[in-house]
Structures are given as structure tokens and as C-alpha cells.
């Protein structure tokens, strides 16, 4: 099982590679992260012009029909360059949800905007006490005439400060932790009574706590079937995991090649440190960890593309295994770079932080290994 890319996929990969190589080196990224907004609208536009935002969507909705494999290809390269822009949030999460469960009117209204980079989206699913449980929702949505009225607080919403639109999970019925009764809503980020408290994330992104106090949302902005939001979010999480795993694998490849390179040039005790057997074995283990992660990533992407049974269990398995592999590689890359690995100046620490962040998003490796086990027992 090794993915042989089609000509189209090769073309996608080489065009992303070229763009990032020419415009998104580490210095360029540093300037983007330090800028007032914290991301680059110019690059955001550039990605869309290259067709990256249309790539995963089906041709029915005006996309290029590349599916999860094109997401994988894009995200691996984004991982290599630590791309900061909210592609996952806008295209994979929001775009994916709208394509999957949106009404024809919603697809028509929102997907072309997303593909043209005209709107940025964020997904507000987590809450202060939810940890990684998609069904643990206390935000309420009450039906009132032609509207829903939303109240509650969402936690750690990545990209919310950049977003035009949010997708918010809220409870239309049932108790916190009930699987049924959670619904999804498209909410304008600039709605009256919607408050953002922004903060910076460990990997240089912007996020926010989002509080809604009786925010009126037209009933037409209900996304998917009322009360069935958890299933939609689960499918969305599987796709997000596919994207994040690909990004992690891209980052791991960069860490490994940088560490190997460094070990061949850095001299201590009159020899390159790569000549020390203890470090050779360490780097062999890093190589093996990356190989396994790469294989699982491909396996998951193929499974997502075919929408195979057991997909969600595989997604959790991959998130866990690739999470642990990423942490091992990131730890050792910092360790082998010594003090340099600790500095903000060198890219190594930034890969470390991105991998740490990926390991939190949608559940850490320990959460997903448990879910992997539980889904097996349930089968």
C-alpha cells in the first residue's frame, strides 16, 4: 500500500511546493505571525488562486473533486512550512460540514465564498468542561418563532478572531453529554451580543473564548438536522484528523531532515555528533517513527476517500499513533539541537509547538487510543 499519485495530484503537490518555497520560508512566516492580524490575507488569497480551497470539494458543488487525498497533499506541505492560515478551520471543518450536511441554499451561499477565499470560518465546538467530548454541550439554542436564541460560552475557538462566520454547536434538547439534541448553527461573527476574548496559541495562532448572550440566529442558519449535530461533528472530526495527521507528518519530515543535517555538521569532542552511536540510534528511531506515521496517514486518507466502514476508529488510531510519534520526534529534535532547539530564532522549536498544538486539537493521543479501544469493544 503506497499511494501512487495521479498526474493531477502530482501537479497539485508541486504547485503547493513551489508557492511555499517561493513565498513562505521561515522568515516570511515569522513576519506574518508577528503582524497585527497574525495571518496573511495576501497568502490566503494566493492559496485560493492556486485552487487549494476548491481542491477537496466535489465537482457537484463547484469543487475540483480531489477529496481527502488532495487535502492530505496540501496539508503535508503546509506542515513542512508551518503555514499559519486557517485552511483546516475554513475549508476542512466548515467547508466539509456545509458540503456534508448543509442545505442546497447553504451550499450555494457559502461554498463559493470559501473556495474564493472571501470568507474565513471557525468551528466552535469545545467548551470549558467538554474536554474532547463533542456531545458535552451546555450552550443552549431555544427556538423562538423563525429564529433560534443561542446562549453560552465556547472555549479555545481557533481562528475565531480572524473569522467572518462561526459554526457553533448548541443544545436544542437533552442534557449535557446526551448524544442527541446537539445542533449546529451558522453564526455571523459580528452578531450583536457575541463577545470574543482573544488570545495567542502556543503555535502562533489566534484563538478566542466566544460568549453568546441571547444571540438571535435565523432558523435558516441551522446546519444539518436539528438534534443530530454530534454525528455530523464526528464525521467532520475524522476529516480534520486526516488533515492534521498529514500536517504533522510534514512537520516530522522537516524535523528529521533538519536534525540529521545538523548532526552531520555540528562538531563536539572533535567529531560530528552524528558519529556518536547513541545519537545514531536515536535518529534511526526518529526515522522509523516518521515512516510509520507516513504509512498510517496514507492509510487513513485512502479510507477517508473511500468512506470505508470503521473509518472513525482508524482516525482515532492514527491520531493517537501519529501524535505519539510526533511528540517523540519533536522532543528528540529539540534535544539533539541542544540550546539552539530551545530558541525562538530557530524553526525547530516552532515545529515542536505546532506538533504540540496538533496533539491537543480534537483530542490528545491518550484520548484517541482509548476511543480506538472502545470502538473495537463496541463492534
Amino acid at each position, binding site marked *: 500500500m503506497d499511494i501512487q499519485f495521479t498526474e493531477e495530484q502530482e501537479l497539485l503537490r508541486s504547485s503547493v511546493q513551489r508557492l511555499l518555497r517561493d513565498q513562505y520560508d521561515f522568515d516570511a512566516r515569522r513576519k506574518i505571525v508577528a503582524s497585527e492580524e497574525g495571518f496573511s490575507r495576501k497568502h490566503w488569497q494566493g492559496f485560493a488562486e492556486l485552487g487549494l480551497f476548491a481542491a477537496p470539494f466535489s465537482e457537484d458543488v463547484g469543487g475540483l473533486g480531489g477529496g481527502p487525498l488532495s487535502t492530505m497533499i496540501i496539508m503535508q506541505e503546509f506542515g513542512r512550512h508551518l503555514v499559519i492560515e486557517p485552511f483546516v478551520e475554513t475549508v476542512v471543518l466548515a467547508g466539509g460540514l456545509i458540503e456534508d450536511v448543509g442545505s442546497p441554499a447553504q451550499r450555494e451561499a457559502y461554498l463559493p465564498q470559501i473556495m474564493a477565499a472571501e470568507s474565513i470560518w471557525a468551528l466552535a465546538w469545545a467548551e470549558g468542561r467538554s*474536554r474532547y467530548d463533542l456531545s458535552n454541550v451546555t450552550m443552549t439554542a431555544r427556538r423562538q418563532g423563525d429564529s433560534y436564541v443561542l446562549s453560552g460560552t465556547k472555549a*479555545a475557538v481557533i481562528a475565531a478572531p480572524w473569522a467572518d462566520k462561526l459554526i457553533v454547536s448548541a443544545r436544542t434538547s437533552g442534557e449535557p453529554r446526551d448524544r442527541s439534541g446537539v445542533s449546529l448553527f451558522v453564526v455571523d461573527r459580528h452578531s450583536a451580543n457575541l463577545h470574543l476574548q482573544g488570545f495567542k496559541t*502556543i503555535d502562533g495562532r489566534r484563538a478566542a473564548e466566544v460568549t453568546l448572550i441571547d444571540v438571535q440566529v435565523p432558523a435558516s442558519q441551522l446546519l444539518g438536522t436539528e438534534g443530530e449535530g454530534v454525528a455530523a461533528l464526528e464525521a467532520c472530526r475524522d476529516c480534520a484528523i486526516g488533515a492534521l495527521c498529514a500536517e504533522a507528518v510534514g512537520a516530522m519530515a522537516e524535523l528529521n531532515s533538519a536534525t540529521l543535517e545538523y548532526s552531520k555538521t555540528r562538531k563536539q569532542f572533535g567529531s560530528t555528533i552524528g558519529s556518536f552511536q*547513541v545519537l545514531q540510534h536515536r535518529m534511526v528511531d526518529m526515522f522509523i517513527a516518521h515512516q510509520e506515521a507516513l504509512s498510517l496517514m496514507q492509510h487513513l486518507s485512502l479510507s477517508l476517500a473511500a468512506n470505508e466502514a470503521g473509518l472513525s476508529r482508524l482516525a482515532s488510531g492514527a491520531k493517537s499513533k501519529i501524535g505519539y510519534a510526533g511528540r517523540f520526534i519533536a522532543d528528540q529534535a529539540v534535544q539533539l539541537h541542544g*540550546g539552539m532547539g530551545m*530558541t525562538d*530564532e530557530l524553526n525547530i522549536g516552532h515545529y515542536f509547538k505546532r506538533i504540540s498544538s496538533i496533539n491537543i486539537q480534537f483530542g490528545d493521543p491518550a484520548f484517541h487510543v*482509548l476511543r480506538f479501544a472502545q470502538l473495537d469493544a463496541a463492534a
Partner: protein
Amino acid sequence: MELNLSKEDAAFRDEVRAFIAENYPQEMRVPNPETDLTKEQSMLWHRILHKKGWIAPLWPKEYGGTGWSITQRFIWEQETSRAGTLPPLAFSVTMVGPVIYTYGNDAQKKKFLPRILSGDDWWCQGYSEPGSGSDLASVRTKAVRNGDHYIVNGHKTWTTLAQHADWIFCLVRTDPAAKAQAGISFLLIDMKTPGVTVRPIITIDGSHEINDVFLEDVRVPVENLIGEENKGWTYAKFLLGNERTSMAGIGRSTRYIAKLKKIVKAEIPAGDPAHLEFVKDIARVELDVLALEATELRVVAQMARGIDPGPAASLFKIRGTEIFQNITELTHRAIGNYGLAIREHPVSANHFMPGPEDGHTASEKYLNARKLSIYGGSNEIQRNIIAKAVLGL
């Protein structure tokens, strides 16, 4: 776990405990004392200890030490660390002070020791260089004798808190022809001397603890040479031994485990499958601490009987840092989604930080703790030391 204390030692422990409780400045109880205090704030405890005469337990009494027994010194370490006090600046009191009273001349002792004790001088360590990390003996900073001065040129790095320092103790090469260790001297340099430049290095947690120090034609009076020219390696090794003594960090680990338990209790409901995982992970790390603490107590008991601990310091450094890294990682994991957030530097109340207050420093601590297995002789180097000195390999 406690030592079996004599009545006198138990009374001493109670006295220390009460003194800390009554005197440790509230102003220093900030979320992250290592990064959040000004220079003046971080000196408050130092000055209180100096007034009490307890600033330098390691030093002989004649130079201002406390005259405590090994057991008492250990009790002091244990109590101050359990209480979460910020230790007095190690580079001054634990590192350069002992070098000066052991190898310095009378004029140097008279000039420097009282100001180290009082906290009037802040010292930093000029050891590592860009090309000399684990292989410290390869330092290239040059000191050339010119009349009654040395002219020093070079580049020191990872210099902790050099931004506050009045003095730097440096390893410099005085004999370029000699083999690695042989041509090194130990030189004290006033940071105000023309040609000394400090450049901040920001670390991955966003904080400014470390620096580059550039030395350009710096004129250093010959009287600032410690001991003999080209014998600096002996003094440096003596100092490194001191650096690693308290690296087991039992008190710190114990405090952080208590905080971790508090976070897990508040954040993860007992019904959540993750709860049991954390319970097990915490139990494992508690056992790690227990085993290391037992080892430390065993070594202290041996030292009290006059037995040389050998390279026990390397064992403490390896395990102490691994354990603390693990605790910071568990804490970062325990706050779940909030682990994405990190405080901005310089720290200000104007910046919003989400999540439980106990977890506000979890991200920065997790990131900052990656340094522990690198600095003070990387853990790989410590393993080499044990392999050679203990196992005879």
C-alpha cells in the same frame, strides 16, 4: 518521605519552616517566579536570608556560611524547595562564591564574597559558546596578556540572566598551543567594561532568560584571574559539581504533582475514562519521585558518614529533569483544550488567559522544561559520566 531526624535536627526543621512561613515575601508569589519578577523583586528573599545569616549554607563559616551539618543543609534544601521559595541566584552563591573562596586570593575574597552574600553583585556564567556546548573544553574565547591586563575576545552564549548581571565569570583560552583543557583560565569580568554586549535570546516559551554575551577587546585587570593561569579547567569542573547537586528537585516535583492533582480533580470528572489514565500516570510519576527521593536520602546519609557520593549528581540530574519534564507534560495535557493558550511576554494583566487559573502557566512550563535535559551538561553527557566513572566502561 523524611530522614530519621534527631531531636535537634527536628527542632531545626521546625525553625526553618516557621521562618519561611513568616518571612517569604508575598510579592514573590507570582504565577511563574522564574519569568515574572523584576530584578529587585527577585532579590527580596536573598536580602532577607542575608540579614538572617542563612544565605550561603554551602559556604564555610569563616566566609559567611551557616556552619550547618550536611543533614541540616539537606533539611534547608528540602524545606525551601517544598515551600516553593525562589532560591537565591545560584550563579552567585552556589557557583562562583565557592570557586572564589576555594581558589581565589585574599584580595579577591575580600572584594567579592561580601557583595555576593549581600546580593549587591549579580553574577552570570560565561561558560558555553556557540561551538562549545557539551564539549566545554573547546572554548575559543581568547584572553591575551598585555601588561597588567588581559584583552578578551569571544562570544559566550546561553548566559542565564546576563541582562541583570554586574559580573560574569568566564572560561577563556590563555594558551592556544596547549591541548583542550590545559590552556583554559578562569577570569572574572565586570559587565560594565567597554566591549561587553548582551543580546537577548528568546526561548520557545516566549520568555527572556538567556542571552548571548559578546566580548570585544575587553580589558580585564590581571588581578581578576582566579588561581593560576591555564588551570581554569580544574576550577570549572569543581563548579560544575556544585551546579548538579540539587538537580533532583524533589521539592519542586512534589509541589507540581500536588498542583497537577488539583487540576485533574477540577477538570476531569471521575466518570471520564481519561480520569483513570491520569490517576495511573500520576501514580507512576509519584513513584518515580519516591524512588529518587529515597536515593537522595540514602546518599545524604552516606555523605553524613563521610562517604564520597561520586557521580550521584549525574543520576540526580538525569532522573530529576526527566521526572519534571514528565510532570509538566502531564499538567499541560490535563488542561485539555486550554493547553493551546500561552501567556504573552512581557506578562501583563491586560492579556486574557482562558481556562483554570492553576493552568495558566502550564504551556510555558511545558515548553521551558525542554531545556532541562539539555543544560548543565546534557543528559547524554551525564550518562557518559556514569558509564565511565561508575561502570568503568
